[in-house]
């Protein structure tokens, strides 16, 4: 019998016992719906976590450190490659070389130091970091109050929320409700901060000396003060994930560099000449696309530097979500497994009911394959309908969970989030899975129907 005929006969048979077949199909739908809802939630959560990380603006950034620095992000890098003494210095020429690598937008040094900032006469100690002007377009500043730096060399500062709270003496106690950023910004924007820092300058005899002997590498440390204007207060932490030292005050990078602030790395690198060729503790390399991360990392490692990227850090996160999705998928499939028993039951009942009909068909010349095909087509049709309705149902459940969660989030003064996501492959996959499960369930009933002895079946009343 042709597939078209099997399908047509199967559909008419399904219509004949409409109630029973509908109930079975609803069973499949519930199974598929739970699978879709579970997986869409898992995928949604993964996307949410991914988005949070992407907002840090560091998915497309590789952090380069010198092997001379003797501090590394992982042991593997320490064991491979040249020894620290043979490896190149991470200085201005090296930075320029990094910038010339393909698919690199920019390479900028990490300038950060701990220093004292005075606000309305009282001192506050914190980590200050330079921020490249390109960060202006970073998602991290979406929720910022005020504005970004007016130029790359302006004496301006953007404060992190926690520091703003500290300046105003509003540091929230544990468990107390969060202070609104816009309130903090109102009393801080446009006001002045006094930055005290120590500048590292070459001593006079070094600049006039002809050779770069160890003796001539002397420098002096001079204390300076600089007035900064507060232009922005940021809710999110634009510096998150970047090493252990978190900055809470940000200056334009060029401006920060021009201050020649004494950096921690200078202490370890005293033999080098200051001023003429600046060396950096680390350089951030920003790429055109996160896809290039691995290739660029490899290229930089070949140059003899150590690298670190968020992609490394998220590898374990992706692993976690893969396991989570697997478990959610298994739980979701349980309902489908129960539904598949429903299919077996319905079809076995149908065989009992249609025993005589099967006998007649065989007497008329239907082969075993024809009878089998008919029951398969019925199981498959239930799978298709069940799958389609189930996907719609799962989508609706996911949406309701999402709306419910967002109502709750809004009540708690959090921004709404999309915690549920249904990709097209999940829709197609769920329907295909439902059909496969249905066909597998039809396997036993179909072969049982095909094996029926026509003489016995015709005698059956």
């Amino acid at each position, binding site marked *: 019998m042709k597939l078209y005929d099997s399908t047509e006969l199967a559909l008419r048979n399904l219509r004949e016992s409409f109630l029973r077949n509908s109930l079975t199909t609803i069973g499949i739908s519930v199974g598929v719906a739970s699978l879709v809802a579970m997986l869409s939630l898992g995928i949604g959560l993964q996307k949410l976590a991914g988005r949070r990380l992407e907002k840090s603006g560091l998915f497309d950034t590789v952090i380069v450190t010198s092997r001379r620095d003797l501090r590394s992000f992982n042991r593997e890098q320490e064991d491979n490659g040249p020894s620290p003494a043979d490896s190149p210095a991470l200085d201005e020429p090296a930075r320029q070389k990094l910038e010339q690598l393909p698919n690199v937008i920019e390479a900028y040094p990490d300038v950060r130091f701990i220093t004292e900032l005075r606000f309305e006469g009282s001192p506050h100690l914190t980590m200050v970091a330079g921020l490249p002007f390109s960060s202006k377009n970073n998602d991290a500043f979406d929720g910022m109050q005020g504005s970004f730096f007016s130029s790359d060399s302006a004496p301006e500062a953007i404060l992190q929320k926690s520091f703003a709270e500290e300046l105003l003496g509003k540091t929230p106690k544990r468990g107390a409700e969060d202070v609104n950023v816009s309130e903090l910004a109102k009393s801080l924007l446009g006001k002045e901060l006094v930055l005290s820092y120590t500048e590292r300058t070459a001593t006079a005899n070094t600049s006039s000396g002809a050779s770069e002997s160890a003796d001539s590498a002397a420098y002096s440390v001079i204390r300076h003060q600089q007035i900064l204007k507060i232009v922005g207060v940021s809710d999110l932490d634009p510096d998150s994930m970047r090493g252990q030292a978190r900055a809470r005050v940000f200056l334009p990078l060029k401006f920060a560099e021009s201050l020649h602030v004494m950096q921690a790395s200078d202490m370890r690198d005293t033999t080098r000449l200051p001023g003429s060729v600046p060396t950096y503790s680390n350089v951030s390399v920003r790429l055109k696309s996160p896809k290039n991360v691995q290739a660029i990392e490899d290229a930089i490692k070949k140059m003899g530097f150590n690298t670190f990227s968020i992609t490394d850090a998220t590898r374990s996160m992706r692993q976690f979500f893969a396991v989570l999705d697997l478990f959610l998928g298994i739980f979701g499939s349980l309902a489908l497994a129960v539904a598949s028993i429903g299919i077996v039951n319905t079809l076995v009942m149908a065989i009992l009911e249609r025993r005589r009909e099967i006998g007649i068909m065989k007497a008329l*010349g239907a*082969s075993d394959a024809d009878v089998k095909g008919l029951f398969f087509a019925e199981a498959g049709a239930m799978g298709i309908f069940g799958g389609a309705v189930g996907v719609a149902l799962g989508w609706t459940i996911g949406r309701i969970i999402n709306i419910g969660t967002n109502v709750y989030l809004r009540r708690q003064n959090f921004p709404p989030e999309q915690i549920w996501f249904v990709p097209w492959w999940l829709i197609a996959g769920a329907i295909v899975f439902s059909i496969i499960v249905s066909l597998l369930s039809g396997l036993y009933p179909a072969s049982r129907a095909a094996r029926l002895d026509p003489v016995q079946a015709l005698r059956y009343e």
Partner: protein
Amino acid sequence: MPPLEASKNPIAVLAENVCRHYQMGEALIRAVDGISLEIRSGEFVALLGTSGSGKSSLLNLIAGLDRPTSGRVVVHGSDLASLSRVELAKYRLHTVGMVFQSFNLIPSMTLFENVELPMRFAEVDRNKREALALKALERVGLAKRKKHRPTELSGGEQQRASLARALINQPRLLLADEPTGNLDSRTGTEIMNFIREFNESLGMTIVMVTHERALAERYAGRMISLADGKLIDDRATASAATAMMRRGES
């Protein structure tokens, strides 16, 4: 076709010492017990016997619905025992048409769909099926009732529809199991006239199971009587002799 003329025809059905035994608990039931017979192409044979005599079991063996315990059944040259399940299904589809006492139409289908069903198994083109099914229904006078379901029809009409279905794939052998058993005598006659017509005009071989001797005498050319699974009598009927005489006179 009269038996004497048919005797020159090739053998349609050959049974050689056919047995069909069933084990029912301790007891062995010998439904068919060593029957040998020959049916020539174009013959109209009635299998007579009381209930339990083995006539329906023999018919099922000829129909390829059942396999003999021993002996062999050869229909139009092919030994049914040597056919695979698939080949046996093809044999039932193309060589045999069956009519049952209880009509055996599928109740969820219309008359048209019932008649069309064997063509679906034979994979006849969809566009040819409609015309063929309508023609078959017209032949038994049911074209106007094609959209009715079997339960909406009288017994006689249902049996006519099942005749139309049996003929749809143009089989050479029509097997009828008590075709008038559930009908009153008037509609029974009507059905028998159709069967006789198929025998005479289409040259179909007919094997009909019945327990009504009068019916067999009137329509069949040959009567084979069975009792306890054994063949006890095989002879030409009076109607065959009459027909022969009629032919001789003319």
